[in-house]
């Protein structure tokens, strides 16, 4: 965590590479589990979402439904949450653990 903050403080808007993960129905629709997104300059979750809406039309309607949570480094994130180089962004459809 400290490493990230130091990095962000010193960040001058260089190339950010983030890993994006998809689960369950999203993984099935995209037929892929992960992808890497490179972005030049500062970035928030909103920046990333705008890009993926264009690049991944097959899951656009699901993302717009608003029932998919998004985690950055395993913590639930909001549109304005910053994303930095090395982050893992995960798209989480509605959960269904347990037995019924």
């Amino acid at each position, binding site marked *: 965590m400290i490493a990230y903050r130091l990095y962000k403080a010193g960040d001058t808007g260089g190339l950010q590479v983030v890993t994006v993960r998809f689960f369950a129905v999203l993984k099935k629709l995209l037929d892929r589990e992960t992808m890497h997104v490179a972005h030049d300059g500062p970035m928030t979750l909103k920046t990333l979402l705008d890009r993926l809406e264009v690049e991944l039309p097959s899951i656009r309607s699901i993302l717009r439904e608003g029932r998919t949570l998004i985690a950055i480094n395993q913590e639930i994130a909001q549109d304005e949450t910053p994303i930095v180089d090395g982050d893992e962004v*995960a798209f*989480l*459809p*509605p*959960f269904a*653990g*347990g037995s*019924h």
Partner: protein
Amino acid sequence: MSPKETGSILEWIKIQEEDFSVEEESNRIKERSKRIGGIVTFLGTARDFSKGKDINRIDFEYYPGMAEKRLNEIRERALQDYDIIEVSIIHRVGRIETGENIVLIVVAAEHRKDAFRACEWCIDELKRITPIWKREETTQGEVWVVEHP
């Protein structure tokens, strides 16, 4: 906390493909304290139908690291909010056949009321916040289950 740091400390949290033993888990928790007077267990099993459709099999997928972290949060909050002694949570993932075990929550307390309250809260919370997904193969095709539409 990086995902890798969550594994080792989680003696009472398990996400695994293998089946579990209710007896073993009860015994393990009983050894925690001689003050234990009541143990409440919730065992979730795979039913053979869902929303009117026959189920052949189910598959659970999860987000490794985050799922364990969430289960651990549930355990710690239960220990803090209820007058209980220990909580164990096990959730299976991967392929599960009809009738098999899916999830086990064991709560030990001095008194039963708190054990009942805490156990029920844990399973409700598990369903609410844990990144686990269920795919059902039914007679009418494959369904990603959404519990609370």
